[in-house]
């Protein structure tokens, strides 16, 4: 030994068991921070990849700018790419056709497929000169096209234009949904084909410029510069909100709420780490007051004792921080691997062994700062131990007792257990805070599950893979088709709906027209979750009855009778239920009435469907879909929504994985934290328990004492956690969901129940271990325990 601080490793050997718990706490805290930040980082990375793939790698879109200005912008160093992008027949309803199907015509330049949508080109190259074209994969497949083939585009005025295929691009979900082909032309050809405009500015050709900035650090600054340099109005500039949001560069108000919510969650995670380490260090030092007193006795100054405590804590960091970071990084790797496995199409680009530097930095920083901050208070406490106290032996008592336990209110074992918990307010607050924070964290993060459910609406049980839609939105899809579809093995379920749009109604002061929609049994079953009042059975079984979808300004109640004008006659519908929502949107001032197929047919006299939705069995192949398409024929719009669904599913998997990953992590941290805290508390009282046992405390009474102590922490932690958790849950709900979707907040009973059960389970687990350990020790060993 050359220095008094050399005592630390020697002392560490003696107090290995106590130190192990503190080290575990630091590891857990660092792991929590690293993993949560790493997961958030990976989530953002994956979402950026997906956003770039789905919507393009552009930051802003510019409209109504001159070609001259566009040329000037290209030369700016802050702009990496600027690509014009024009669309004609976007709604696939103007009569531009290719191979007998509507064709959406795009005009652009090579940068579009190389820089803005880098994954778009599947084969070949962008047409370099007039007369060349890229076509979408669905056209390639249906028309059997190859590079070099000629494709004919028919315009509504009867002109046939011929282009040579230079390559193919992937299908977009919009095209598949509209059952249309896409053709990409160079700007000259696009301008030439655009109707009624010969010469003019890009805006005359409905051309927007996609802009990709060179750096993503200060996109808002770049936008500002660009606006002032070219006198652009706000209306001319549209942001790629999703991508900018993910890059942390959006000024969109909803994104600002999301950033604020992320900030709150960040502070909560940090607080959890700080509390865990602080409570662990506090407990550790408290157990060794006698030792510090002895140090003071021998001649250490309070400053030296403080140095010792701090140095000791930093010594733990040497192992604990790298271990916590390593553990966090491994968990992130596993999550990325799961993501790649679940949705290889979207997340193949995720690194196998990616390192999230921000998360590692956060883990290290939080670990070090927290330990330094957390060590301050115990170090001060240790330094305050008087040498006299050490000599008299009273320093060994973990905490000075100021008041006696109340043995009148409860039995002595329970009373002492409660007194152990509440006798030191600081420790009690730390433990309560630590328990409460677990609940707060869980309730706060659980809001993201609701957010996910709202943000990813297509993944509802009724989401179809294919839809056969009446082109003129009338009841013209042969109802016999439904039975034939249901017989196809690749079809899991097919269900039809009849629509009667804009039916005049009376009996409601707020709406004068309504869309009447028919449901079959399956669709009624799906509506069950949305039933606010009334009965679905009545609507299904009794003719002339229906359900209304709740509108904020509607006064319709269950039991009301509405008169509708259908099939040329006035008919009455009795409202037997109110739904909170349904899968269909309606125009303002137009109500939604849902009834059974029989009621619909009876009232309207119509028998065929407007839409038949098809859900496919898992793994249904493209050829099976083609066969369905052929069977259905071309008289209906065959909307293929699989691509869009797969994109949503990708986001859904990703979101699910991260959101539930966070929740599982918080649950695990709660269990570890509770188990560790109780174990430390029991360990600090082992000697005292030994004395109690010597006096005559039975093991059962000892268990009751420990349970009472743990129960006191759990009870106060649960109450505080529930109150604070509900407040943060409400705040985050308002920021993430209320603002955007206007849904009212409700107490999340199930989430609250889950975390309270986890806490209860953790407490049971936490008391079991130490009690079992003390049971197995002889009383003499317990008294002599260090």
């Amino acid at each position, binding site marked *: 030994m050359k220095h008094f601080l050399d005592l630390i490793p020697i002392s560490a050997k003696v107090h290995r068991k106590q130190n192990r718990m503190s080290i575990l706490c630091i590891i857990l805290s660092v792991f929590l921070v690293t993993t949560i930040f790493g997961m958030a980082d990976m989530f953002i990375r994956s979402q950026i990849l997906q956003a770039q793939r789905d919507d393009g790698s552009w930051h802003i879109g510019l409209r109504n700018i001159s070609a001259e200005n566009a040329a000037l912008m290209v030369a700016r160093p802050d702009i990496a790419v600027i690509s014009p992008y024009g669309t004609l027949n976007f709604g696939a309803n103007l009569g531009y056709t290719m191979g007998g199907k509507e064709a959406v015509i795009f005009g652009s330049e090579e940068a579009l497929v190389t820089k803005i949508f880098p994954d778009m080109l599947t084969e070949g190259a962008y047409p370099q000169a007039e007369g060349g074209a890229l076509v979408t994969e669905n056209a390639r497949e249906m028309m059997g096209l190859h590079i070099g083939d000629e494709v004919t585009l028919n315009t509504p005025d009867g002109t046939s234009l011929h282009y040579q295929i230079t390559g193919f691009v992937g299908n977009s979900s919009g095209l598949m949904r509209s059952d249309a082909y896409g053709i990409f032309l160079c700007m000259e050809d696009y301008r030439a084909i655009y109707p009624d405009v010969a010469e003019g500015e890009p805006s005359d050709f409905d051309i927007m410029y996609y802009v990709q900035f060179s750096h993503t650090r200060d996109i808002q600054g770049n936008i500002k510069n660009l606006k002032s340099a070219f006198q652009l109005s706000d209306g001319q500039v549209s942001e790629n909100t999703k991508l900018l949001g993910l890059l942390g560069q959006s000024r969109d108000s909803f994104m600002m709420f999301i950033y604020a919510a992320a900030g709150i969650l960040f502070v909560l995670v940090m607080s959890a780490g700080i509390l865990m380490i602080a409570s662990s260090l506090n407990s550790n030092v408290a157990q060794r007051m006698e030792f510090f007193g002895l140090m003071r006795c021998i001649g250490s100054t309070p400053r030296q004792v403080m140095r010792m405590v701090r140095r000791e804590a930093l010594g733990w960091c040497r192992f604990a921080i790298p271990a916590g970071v390593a553990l966090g990084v491994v968990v992130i790797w596993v999550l990325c691997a799961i993501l790649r496995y679940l949705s290889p199409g979207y997340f193949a680009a995720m690194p196998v062994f990616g390192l999230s530097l921000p998360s590692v930095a956060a883990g290290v920083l939080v670990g070090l700062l927290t330990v330094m901050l957390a060590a301050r208070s115990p170090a001060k406490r240790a330094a305050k131990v008087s040498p006299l106290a050490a000599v008299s032996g009273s320093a060994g008592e973990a905490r000075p*007792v100021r008041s*006696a336990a109340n043995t009148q209110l409860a039995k002595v074992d329970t009373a002492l257990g409660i007194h152990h918990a509440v006798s030191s307010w600081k420790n009690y607050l730390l433990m309560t805070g630590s328990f409460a924070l677990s609940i707060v964290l869980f309730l706060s993060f659980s809001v993201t599950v609701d957010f996910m459910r709202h943000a990813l609406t297509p993944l509802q049980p009724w989401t179809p893979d294919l839809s056969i839609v009446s082109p003129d939105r009338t009841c013209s899809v042969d109802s016999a088709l439904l039975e034939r579809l249901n017989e196809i093995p690749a079809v899991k379920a097919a269900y039809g709906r009849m629509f009667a749009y804009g039916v005049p109604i009376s009996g409601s002061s707020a709406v004068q027209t309504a869309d009447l929609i028919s449901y079959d049994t399956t669709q009624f079953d799906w509506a069950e979750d949305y039933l606010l009042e009334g009965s679905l059975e009545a609507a299904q079984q009794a003719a002339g009855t229906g359900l209304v979808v709740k509108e904020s300004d509607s006064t319709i109640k269950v039991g009301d009778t509405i008169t509708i004008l259908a099939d040329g006659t006035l008919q009455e519908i009795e409202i037997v239920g109110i739904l909170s929502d349904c899968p269909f949107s309606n125009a303002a001032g137009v109500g939604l009435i849902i009834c059974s197929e029989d009621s619909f047919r009876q009232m309207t006299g119509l028998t065929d469907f407007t839409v038949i939705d098809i859900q496919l069995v898992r793994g249904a192949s493209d050829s099976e879909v083609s066969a369905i398409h052929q069977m259905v024929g071309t008289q209906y719009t065959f909307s293929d929504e699989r691509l869009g669904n797969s994109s949503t599913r990708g986001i859904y998997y990703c979101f699910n994985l991260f959101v539930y990953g966070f929740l599982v992590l918080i649950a695990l941290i709660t269990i570890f934290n509770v188990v560790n805290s109780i174990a430390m508390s029991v360990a600090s009282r082992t000697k005292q328990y030994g004395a109690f*046992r010597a006096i005559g405390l039975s093991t059962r009474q000892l268990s009751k004492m420990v349970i009472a102590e743990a129960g006191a922490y759990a009870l106060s932690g649960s109450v505080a956690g529930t109150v604070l958790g509900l407040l943060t849950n409400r705040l985050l709900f308002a920021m993430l969901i209320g603002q955007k979707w206007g849904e009212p907040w409700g107490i999340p009973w199930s989430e609250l129940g889950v975390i309270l059960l986890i806490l209860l389970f953790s407490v049971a687990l936490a008391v079991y271990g130490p009690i079992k350990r003390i049971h197995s020790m002889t009383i003499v060993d317990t008294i002599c325990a260090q």
Partner: protein
Amino acid sequence: MKILTVQNLCKTYGKGEARVDALKNVSFSLEKGEFAAVVGESGSGKSTLLNCIGALDTPTSGEVRMDGQNLFSMGEEKRTIFRRRNIGFIFQSFQLVSELNVEQNIIFPLLLDYKKPNPDAVQEILELLGLTSRRNHLPNQLSGGQQQRVAIGRALITKPKLILADEPTGNLDSKNSRDVMELLTQASRHYQQTILMITHNRNLTASVDRVFQVADGVLTDLGGEANETLS
């Protein structure tokens, strides 16, 4: 009437070369109301003997019978209850419950038995110990001598068959030591209380009825006469 019978008690720690025989075939018995002392050098096995008799530790072999009942044939729970009703402990370091006041500490064994203490008996003990004015004080508000008196009160409250005192004056000055010894003697005489005390201070054996000596784990009964010689 025999209260305590110890037969062939052995306690061994460690194995092989590290094996230490702390107690070697110890046998003796105590009559009701007897005040006995065990003397011996530090490390001779005194505390091990006391721990085994008090069922705080388990002997390697042998029997400890209290009022005819073999302590180690009972289950843990039953033994604990038996111990708190029949054996009182007085420790060198007092081992008071810091969260309980003087009165609560004294009645603690009764509370553990979920019994309602008799206020007269508590008052009598407090008076005997001279702690009436301190009944609501916490242990950290008492002197060492007062704390040990509380510990004696706690040992007496259940009127146990045997009180085991492990160096009861070890942490006290000579005046307080004298007081404690007087209290123990008084208890022995007044309540017909059987007491087995361990001490390394041979001067304290003056007031006891019988003295045992432990050396290298072997117990020798020095008897009452030897006691007189020693004192």
